[in-house]
């Protein structure tokens, strides 16, 4: 039964007709969570004991960098699915996610730089964390331009999937860079194993921001994947029926 369900949902047609039902809920719920947490974080949390008010940029920076890495992981899963089972929808997802991943990585880099000026006294240093994040940004751009350079979609999808898998090695490097080498960037405040080194009064709105921002990004991914379906399946009768 599970197999049949996956088979059905993996067809672009079912996906296109079903996704609108959940889209609205994800959008409204994450909008509520995000605006609530962001207001809480920016206006009603205490100042940090050394950074003062400038620490509040984490409510943008941490969600953006977390999601930029998660999106790459999702792309890698989609790539493996496409390469093994040749699920067309998975291939649409890879190229639908890439520009959104580039955008969130860009937000992470810019917000980090803005935070760096009052905190470190510099906006850019070539330390392991910052450099590996820049590599992630360039990789996203590379994947997009590679896909655009092909006129044959199927060839582009295959090559893109392989490249996404090869590039996945960068994700654990970004994650562990602050532990493996000495960096200007501080090590993680929130880990799975230890008690967070960020006070609960600042942590709860941060978690809300991460969840809310993730929901909004998923909405963007849904819209972007629908665009890919329209573009690639425009000759199908059911696309005309949907429109």
């Amino acid at each position, binding site marked *: 039964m599970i197999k049949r369900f996956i088979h059905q949902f993996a067809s672009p047609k079912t996906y296109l007709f079903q996704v609108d039902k959940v889209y609205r809920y994800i959008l409204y719920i994450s909008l509520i969570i995000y605006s609530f947490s962001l207001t809480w974080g920016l206006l009603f949390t205490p100042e940090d*004991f050394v950074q003062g008010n400038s620490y509040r940029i984490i409510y943008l920076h941490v969600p953006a960098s977390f999601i930029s890495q998660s999106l790459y992981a999702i792309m890698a899963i989609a790539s493996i699915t496409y390469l093994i*089972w040749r699920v067309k929808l998975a291939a649409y997802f890879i190229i639908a996610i890439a520009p959104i991943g580039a955008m969130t990585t860009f937000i992470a880099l810019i917000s980090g730089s803005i935070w760096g000026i009052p905190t470190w006294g510099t906006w850019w240093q070539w330390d392991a964390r910052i450099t590996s994040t820049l590599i992630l940004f360039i990789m996203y751009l590379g994947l997009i331009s590679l896909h655009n350079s092909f006129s044959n979609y199927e060839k582009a999808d295959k090559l893109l999937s392989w490249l996404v898998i090869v590039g996945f090695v960068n994700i654990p490097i970004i994650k562990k860079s602050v532990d493996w080498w000495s960096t200007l960037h501080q090590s*993680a405040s929130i880990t799975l194993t230890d008690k967070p080194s*960020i006070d609960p009064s*600042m942590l709860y709105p941060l978690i809300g921001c991460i969840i809310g921002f993730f929901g909004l990004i998923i909405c963007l991914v849904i819209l972007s994947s629908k665009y890919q379906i329209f573009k690639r399946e425009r000759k199908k009768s059911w696309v005309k029926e949907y429109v």
Partner: protein
Amino acid sequence: MHPHRRKRLFNIILVLLFSTSGIGLILYSLNKNLDYFFTPTELKTINIPEDKRIKIGGMVLENSVVREQSKVIFTVTDYKNYIEVVYEGIVPDLFKEGSGVVALGFMQNETFYAQEVLAKHDENYMPPNLNINNDN
């Protein structure tokens, strides 16, 4: 699993294995070169020419900061070894005793002459009143 699919899965695992081991070997051979700064202990064990610009990092030793006109003199430590740093210029707002620092400059006769001083923030975030409670 279908034999075609098993073959493709095998190929994916192979590619993952090769790419991680390739990058892993590169990072392993670069190892210390990827470090952003030297710690005082590392500086003691390796010999660095006086005209080579390097970065050192560590904590600013408590009660070590002396200001003389535009000069700032302080001690950087990893609580094992100590290095005196002389810097002429403005230090960042977050520069203070007992917190992290990274300095860029030259090592000359046991003294480090810094051209640039950056504050290194740690992973702790808390409101000011809580910090006072923790100190007591």
